[in-house]
């Protein structure tokens, strides 16, 4: 007699491999396995993680100082190029491996005000407070739920057939390029929801009030990169300004690419609002997994992406120091294999190619796909 896996009747098997619906018990067991991995990892967290994040902080400072220093000699093209690159690296490291991860509370256990998730302020035009709300809360709690996770297309892109097509989306290849170049500005205004203002559900005064902290942050960032440091350079004002502009732009492009690879590759799914009704911990884990995708690559790629190359592990364990994800991913994969769950990973080229494909494909009309009744468990 051949033993069939208990809860995968052929009738509910979907087309894609690894997308068979599991039984409730299986999903809870899956969750318990991930919880066990979480506990094991937490028990080991300590001195080496503290040393690591301090080293990252030092790397941010050194690359930043070196980059800005070289830009003062920016009329020599090699100095300008190297300076701009180093400054971009510094900003990327600060935004991703330091800022993003610290703001998730990954290092709160250190009790160190420098790495305190609720007070950390990062080096981009958006305020950390808005980020903690749109990202830590909305995006991480309601990952890939259409209508609840603003990160699904950021309100300007159609990336899934489940989103209704409108003629506006025909221009999205262009919007995507602009969005990528100005990514930090998109992040900055994400929480302000200009839509509500244009729909007349918010007065101009309310909008101004809501915008005030963001405006202050934007001013500070602009003054720093485009007035203060260029002025310090005196006659070399222009090369410094340009270097800062390009460094900010490079950071924007890089973060856009990494973040889009985390949630908009071909095999990532979106979910209906109904999915969170009575959602159990196991189901929450499963939704995070099926709404995220990883990047394979070198250690350098992992560090420069703030370990968001392990987007899956980040979504399963957002508060565990990200440097642990690489190690955890081996076990997460093994757990997925055990339950026949698809683990979405690939090279940067392949994953980003799939993102571009989505941007192009769903600019055009497609057969509407309904999310109604979509569930993660077989009843």
């Amino acid at each position: 007699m051949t033993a069939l896996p208990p809860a995968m009747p052929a009738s509910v098997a979907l087309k894609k491999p690894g997308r068979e619906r599991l039984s409730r018990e299986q999903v809870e067991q899956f969750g318990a396995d991930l919880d066990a991995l979480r506990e094991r990892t937490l028990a080991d967290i300590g001195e080496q993680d503290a040393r690591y994040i301090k080293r990252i902080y030092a790397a941010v400072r050194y690359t930043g100082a070196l980059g800005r220093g070289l830009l003062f000699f920016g009329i020599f093209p090699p100095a300008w190029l190297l300076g701009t690159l180093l400054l971009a690296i510094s900003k990327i490291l600060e935004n991703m491996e330091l800022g993003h991860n610290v703001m998730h509370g990954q290092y709160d256990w250190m009790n160190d005000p420098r790495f305190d998730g609720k007070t950390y302020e990062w080096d981009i035009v958006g305020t950390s407070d808005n980020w903690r709300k749109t990202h830590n809360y909305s995006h991480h709690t309601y990952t890939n739920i259409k209508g609840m996770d603003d990160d699904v297309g950021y309100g300007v892109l159609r990336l899934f057939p489940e989103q209704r097509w409108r003629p506006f989306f025909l221009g999205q290849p262009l919007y995507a390029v602009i969005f990528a170049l100005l990514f930090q500005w998109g992040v900055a205004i994400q929480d302000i929801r200009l839509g509500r203002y244009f729909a007349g559900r918010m007065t101009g005064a309310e909008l101004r009030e809501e915008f005030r902290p963001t405006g202050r942050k934007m001013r500070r960032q602009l003054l720093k990169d485009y007035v203060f440091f260029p002025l310090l350079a005196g006659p070399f004002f222009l090369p410094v300004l340009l270097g800062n502009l390009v460094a900010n732009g490079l950071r924007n492009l890089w973060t856009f690419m990494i973040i889009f690879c985390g949630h908009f590759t071909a095999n990532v799914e979106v979910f209906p609002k109904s999915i969170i009704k009575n959602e159990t911990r196991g189901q929450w884990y499963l939704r995070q997994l099926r709404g995220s995708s990883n990047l394979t690559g070198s250690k350098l790629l992992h560090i420069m992406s703030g370990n968001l190359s392990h987007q899956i592990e980040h979504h399963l364990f957002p508060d565990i120091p990200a440097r642990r994800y690489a190690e955890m991913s081996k076990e997460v994969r093994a757990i997925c294999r055990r339950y026949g769950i698809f683990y979405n990973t690939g090279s940067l080229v392949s994953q980003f190619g799939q993102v571009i494909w989505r941007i192009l494909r769903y600019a055009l009309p497609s057969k509407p796909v309904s999310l109604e009744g979509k569930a993660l468990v077989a009843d």
Partner: protein
Amino acid sequence: MPATGALKRVIAPLIDPVAFDFWAARVNPLLSWERPLARVVARQVTARDCVTLVLRPNRHVPPVQAGQHVPVTVEVDGVRLTRSYSPSHVRASHARRRGGRKDCLAITVKRIPGGRVSSHLCQEVRVGDVLELGEAFGAMTLRPDVPRWLYVAAGSGITPLMSLLRAQTAATAGVDVTLLYWARTRADLCFLDELRGLEKAAGSGQPGVRVHIILTREATLLPGEYSGRPSADLLAQLVPDLAERQVYACGTGGFVDSLRTLLADQVAGFEAEAFTLPERAAVVGAPVQVTLRRSGRVLDIPAGEALLPALEARGIHPKHGCRMGICNSCACDRISGTSENLNTGATQSEPGVVRICISAARSDMTLDL
């Protein structure tokens, strides 16, 4: 040199204090934009398992009076931990020196087996290391109006009393202090030679300093040593003029409590400081008091109940997000008390960040809300 006064105020908006400290520490580890730091300039073993660290504070360390205690923060296994220590010596000086003040503070630390901070300070810290200090607290300070003193110390409770004695004997001649100093064995006594020296300096017939050593675990006693726990008989025998003396007592919670019972209404005044807080893990369901520091509210909440819904049920609506411990929106500082992580069952008494949606109080607690 960090900027001073007016200049500092002008450039403050341009400065990221963390970045400033990062670069400043490369020049001199005591330099900081605003953090109170102190460098260890000397280290002596004072008694068994007991180490005295002499500290040179930087300009941000607020003044300390003899008899007070200061929070000392160290990093142990990547975690910053803060404990109070009463300096055993305070020497103030207003002259500034490069990167610091001339003041000296000495802390005397008794190593507690398994104790994280005391073990670190006694075993790991070396001359040249930098510790972070905080604002000094404590009302057991010098009082020129009191003519006669009774100091009572147990173990490391000698420290604040020692700094008081040192300050008093350095300033005036006619002090009248009796010190009762409890320890387990002779090897556990700190500052014994210095104390005997102070005693002799007074000369016979003068009030001066009188020191009585009481050892609870020493097999054979030398002349001038006593044994036994605090008792009415022993106190009456060693201090015939009890009723005229103001008492400062310092030691573990139990020691201080028993002295309070014995002495409080026998003496001219009684003040005490306990070095260990009594253990207070409340059973699930028992009411505990949760104090919200910023709003000043105090609430009774059953121990073991998740804090966020408990606060909401009492009309308080703290910032929150996912309600399941992942988004960190409800993270707030637990200033004191023991909390339980309801997901893992782990308890935590170290002041630090707590996510109130998945945490319960297991003792009286103060939150930064």
